[in-house]
């Protein structure tokens, strides 16, 4: 499935991450996953949250640079080799990935968040190869 990921620009300075999490927590927004892409002087915080539109609005009100980006969510089994299998499929179909990260919600499944260069092509391939992957519409 395609979901909206929330991206926030952060300077590398103390307390900023803490602030973001507090703002979202106070607004009753749950964070399912987050990751930080960092460079020497800034970072991009990427979040999967319960209400991306509300998160964007509230972070903007708090003077953050925020964007929502469409990403692909793929569920795989939580066992050795399943991520390799997923990437093998994408690689064989020449899907280029800007970035991705994975998290696991419970013991038997892992959830992969993928930002492909061509999101529609990626979706089509995943749909057509459903047999090989545990692919779900539920978070």
């Amino acid at each position: 499935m395609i979901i909206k990921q929330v991206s926030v620009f952060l300077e590398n300075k103390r307390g900023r991450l803490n602030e973001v999490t507090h703002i979202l927590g106070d607004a009753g927004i749950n964070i399912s996953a987050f990751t930080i892409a960092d460079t020497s002087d800034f970072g991009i915080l990427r979040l999967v949250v319960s209400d991306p539109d509300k998160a964007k609005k509230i972070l903007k009100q708090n003077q953050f640079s925020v964007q929502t980006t469409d990403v692909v969510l793929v569920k795989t089994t939580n066992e050795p080799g399943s991520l390799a299998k997923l990437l093998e499929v994408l690689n064989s179909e020449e899907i280029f990935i800007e970035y991705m990260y994975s998290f696991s919600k419970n013991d038997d499944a892992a959830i992969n968040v993928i930002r492909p260069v061509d999101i529609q092509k990626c979706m089509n391939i995943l749909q057509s190869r459903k047999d090989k992957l545990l692919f779900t519409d539920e978070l």
Partner: protein
Amino acid sequence: MIWNEKIECATREEMSAIQSERLIKTVERVYHNVPSYRAKMQEKGLVPGDIKSVEDLSKLPFTEKTDLRDNYPFGMFTVPMSEIVRVHASSGTTGKPTVVGYTRNDLTMWSEVVTRTLCMAGVGQDDIVQIAYGYGLFTGGLGMHYGTENLGATVIPISGGNTQKQLQLMQDFGSSVIACTPSYALFLAEVMKENNIDPESLKLRVGIFGAEPWSENMRKEIEAKLKIKAIDIYGLSEVVGPGVSCECEEQAGMHINEDHFIPEIIHPETLEPMPPGEIGELVFTTVTKEGIPIIRYRTHDLTRLIYDKCKCGRTLVRMEKCMGRSDDMLIIRGVNVFPSQIESVLLEMSETEPHYLLIVEREGTLDVLKVMIEVQEQFFSDEIHKLEELKNKIKHNIQNTLGITVAVKLVEPKTIERTAGKSKRVIDNRKI
């Protein structure tokens, strides 16, 4: 040695008489040959006959750097191009440089004033002068060059940069004088240390430093590290280039060659002339230049004038080291930088008003300009490489416009302090 004792030690009455006579002729010449001067004088209801002596100087309209730019490239020259034998240009504020032209007489006059300044600094015929100012459109190199030749000293026209070669020639040729920017002098000292060159082993004894502001502390540092006497020289291309004024060996203010360049101090806001000794903005009127005479040019440098006779015997009025600027111009490694230039680069890259802050630091001996830019919606991308590209593009575009390398730092929105809605533009952390 005093090169031109009659002028340099003239009484105030004698000097005023020379200035008055020359000023009257200059005003006459610009009124009849330069449309922009004529228009400005007419606006004030002035005709050349209204200027009867140097006392009337303050009646005349001011000239700004923008006037030169508006008349780019040769619009303010008072002679046909056939009489112009050389042009120089300084870094411009919006891509266009300010251009100045010299007749043969102008070059002779320029050499004369530079020769005077060299003598003030204690340089003589027996000296070997290594000129490490840039040669080219910049007035520093060629200005010092011809003045040194005119004096009869030996010129090493090495130009700027190439530090290893500078040191090699300094050792092999026995340079006794170095002319460069003060920050480059400190850099030379550092490289000497790295190369285990003992300054005591060199013949170097005098440094003539200009083209950027420097403090008494920096003077002490240079003198201690290079074991030389550090002399401050002042000039700007709009007036002539180096040689407008220079310290003598007393190091007690820079003697202005006021028979050619008449100084005034004005209040930077009211623009009214200020009493002698008060700090204000320095304004120059050239009274002998033929190519591009300049009337009441606002330097935007803040200083004061000292009219007392100097211990060296000269009576030429002295100006103190410049104490700052009345505008927001920064001098970074000898290059003039206006925050508005950076703003226009950023504006070209986005639709909305950019919020930025310039931070100037002195790292080691060199000035570093950092540009902080708020990442507003229009700049933000979810992908690191796009943000890195943005950073590089900003850096590249600024470098293309200004000719200097800057460090770019992306910061969060609203991190740059605003005063009355407007961002503070510049923080100068240089302890110079």
